[in-house]
C-alpha cells in the first residue's frame, strides 16, 4: 500500500501532469475539437499525486511552509471541482414594475449537484437608470430592486456596475444589455384585462432596429416598431430612463395599413382591443451561484503567503547568505523526491 503511495507521489508524475495540463489547455484553445473538460483528468492525477506526496514525502514535514502551500493548492483544486458541481449560471430580462419569475431564467450552465433554490427568490424590478457621457460612452448603471424577505419585509437594493444583489446565495448582476419595453393592456371580448410588456432589442445599441413581433391573446401576430420621437444626442451627456424617451409605436398586422399609436391609444384587433399604456426599461441580468469562491480565495491567499515564506527561508535564510554550488554545469538544491 505504502509503495503504491510512494510511486503515486513521484515528482516525475507531477512534471508529466503539469505538462499534460499545459498541452490540453493550449490545444483546447486552438479549436473546438478538444474540450477543456479533458483538463480535469491530469488535474485529478496531479491532486492524487500531491496527496500521496504529502503523505509519504518527508520534505513536506520538514518544511511546514511548503506543506501549507501544497495543502492549500490541493484545497483550491478540490474546492473549484466541488464548485463546478454545484454551480449555476443563467440570464434573464426584467421590465420595470414586473416581478422576477424563475421560470424565465435561461440556464447557461448548471452543475449536477446544484441545490435549486431559485424558486425562493422573490423581488420586484424598480426604476432603471443608465448614465452616458458624450459620445454615448456608458457610465453608471442604477437598477433598483425590492426584495421580498421573510415576514413580509422589503429590502431595497440598488444594483450597479460595482454592486450586485446577493439573494439566497445567488448573485444578480446587471449587464450592459438593457432596452425599452412597451407596456400594453389586452382587453378580450368579455372585458377581461391582461397587462404585459413587449421587450424591444437592446437600446441604445440597436437604436436603428427597435422591432419585435408578438402574438396577441386573440391569436393574431402583430409587428411592433418603436419609434423614439427624437434621436439620441450623441454629443451630450445623457441619462437613459423610461420617461426620457418620448415615443410612438408603429403597428403592422396582416394586410392592414400601418397604424401609429401613442401613449393611451387603443386599437381593435382580432378578438380584442390593445391599449398602449406606457414605455418602460428592461434590464438584462446574469445570475450565478458559486458559494465556495470565498473559500477558494482564502485558500489561494494562504497558499501564496506560505509560498512566500518558503522562498524566504530557501533563498534569504536568516544568517546565511544565498549560496550556489555551481560546478560549471550542474547546480545542486535541496531535493524533495
Amino acid at each position, binding site marked *: 500500500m505504502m509503495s503504491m503511495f510512494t510511486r503515486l507521489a513521484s*515528482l516525475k508524475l*507531477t*512534471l508529466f501532469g*503539469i*505538462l499534460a*495540463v*499545459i498541452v490540453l*489547455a*493550449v490545444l*483546447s*484553445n486552438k479549436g473546438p475539437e478538444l474540450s*477543456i473538460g479533458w483538463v480535469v483528468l491530469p488535474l485529478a492525477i496531479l491532486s492524487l499525486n500531491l496527496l500521496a506526496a504529502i503523505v509519504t514525502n518527508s520534505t513536506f514535514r520538514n518544511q511546514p511552509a511548503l506543506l501549507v502551500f501544497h495543502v492549500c493548492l490541493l484545497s483550491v483544486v478540490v474546492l473549484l471541482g466541488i464548485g463546478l458541481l454545484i454551480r449555476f449560471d443563467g440570464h434573464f430580462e426584467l421590465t420595470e414594475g414586473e416581478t422576477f419569475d424563475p421560470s424565465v431564467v435561461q440556464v447557461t450552465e448548471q452543475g449536477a449537484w446544484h441545490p435549486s433554490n431559485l424558486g425562493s427568490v422573490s423581488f420586484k424590478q424598480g426604476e432603471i437608470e443608465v448614465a452616458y*457621457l458624450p459620445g454615448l*460612452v*456608458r*457610465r*453608471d*448603471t442604477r437598477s433598483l430592486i425590492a426584495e421580498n424577505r421573510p415576514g413580509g419585509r422589503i429590502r431595497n437594493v440598488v444594483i450597479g*456596475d*460595482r454592486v*450586485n444583489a446577493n439573494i439566497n446565495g445567488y448573485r444578480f*448582476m446587471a*449587464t*450592459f444589455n438593457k432596452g425599452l419595453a412597451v407596456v400594453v393592456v389586452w382587453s378580450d371580448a368579455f372585458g377581461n384585462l391582461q397587462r404585459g410588456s413587449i421587450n424591444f432589442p437592446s437600446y441604445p445599441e440597436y437604436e436603428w432596429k427597435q422591432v419585435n413581433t408578438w402574438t396577441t391573446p386573440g391569436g393574431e401576430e402583430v409587428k411592433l416598431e418603436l419609434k423614439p420621437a427624437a434621436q439620441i444626442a450623441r454629443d451630450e451627456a445623457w441619462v437613459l430612463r423610461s420617461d426620457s424617451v418620448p415615443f410612438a409605436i408603429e403597428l403592422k398586422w396582416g394586410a392592414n395599413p400601418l397604424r401609429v399609436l401613442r401613449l393611451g391609444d387603443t386599437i381593435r384587433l382580432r378578438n380584442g382591443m390593445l391599449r398602449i399604456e406606457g414605455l418602460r426599461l428592461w434590464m438584462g441580468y*446574469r445570475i*450565478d451561484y*458559486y458559494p465556495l*469562491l470565498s473559500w477558494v*480565495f482564502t485558500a*489561494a*491567499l494562504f*497558499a*501564496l503567503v506560505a*509560498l*512566500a515564506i518558503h*522562498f524566504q527561508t*530557501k*533563498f*534569504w535564510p536568516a544568517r546565511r547568505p*544565498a*549560496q*550556489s554550488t*555551481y560546478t*560549471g*554545469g*550542474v*547546480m*545542486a*538544491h*535541496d*531535493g*524533495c*523526491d
Partner: protein
Amino acid sequence: MMAATEKNLLIAAVSVLAIATITDALLRYRQRSSTAATSILIAAATLMLALAITVRWVREQQGPFLTLYDVLLSNLFSLGLICLIVYAVGPLLRVSTVVVLPFLVLVGLWLLSVPPDAVPLPATFDNSWLWLHVSSGKVFLGLCLVAAGSSALLLLDHFDLSGRHLRTNIQAGELDAAIWPVFALAFICHSFMLIAGAVWAYSAWGRYWAWDPLETSALVTWLAMGLLLHARVTYRQMPLPISWVSVVAIFILAFLTFFGLPFSSLAPHKGLI
C-alpha cells in the same frame, strides 16, 4: 498641448534609455564601473515616463489600462522602475542591463510607433482589484525580464559568445544563484496576478475564469514557471543551460501574453489590460 507634452516626454525618455544602453555598454567595454551613470540615466528615463503617464492620466481622466499604447507606456515605466530597484539592491544582477536596456529601447520605439488613442474604461472594470491585478502583473514581468536578461547572458557566456569584455562582467556561479530568488519572486507575483485577476474578472464581467486565450496563456506561463521550479529542485543533474533557456522562453511567453494576445484575440479580455 498636453498630448504634445506627453509625446515629447516619451521621446526624451526613450532617448535617455538609448543613451543609457550605449553608456552602460561602453563603460563595461572599457572595464570601468557603469553603476552610477547607468542608474542615474535609468532613473531619469523612469521619471520622464512617470510624468508622461501623469499627463495622459490628467487628460484622459483614467489610468493607462486599455489600449496597446496604454499597456506599452505603463509597462515601459514599470519595467524601468523594477530594473532600477533590482540595480540598486542586487549588485550581481546589474550586468543584466546589457540585455535589459536594449530591450527597453525596443519597447520604447514600439510605443512611439503606436497611435496614442484612448478608449474609455468601462464602469464595471474600474475597481481596486484591477489595480492589484495589473500592478502584480507588472512587477512579475519586470522581475522576469531581469531573470531572463541574466539567463541570456549566462547562455552567451556558456557558449563563449559573450566576448572577452563582457565575460569579465559575468560571475557565472553567483549570477546563476542570484537569478532564482528573482524568478521565485516573479512566480509569487504571477500567482497573485492570477488570483487578483480572477476576483476582478468575477466582478467586472461575472466569470472568474473563462479559458480565454489570454487567461490560458497566463496559466500556461504560471504552470511553466512551476514546472521549471520543480525541475530545478528535483533533477539535480539538470543542465544549467536548459534552465536558462527555460527562463528566457518563459519571459517570451509572458511578453506575448502581455503585449500580443490581448490585442489579437476576440476574447472578452481584448485590450483590457
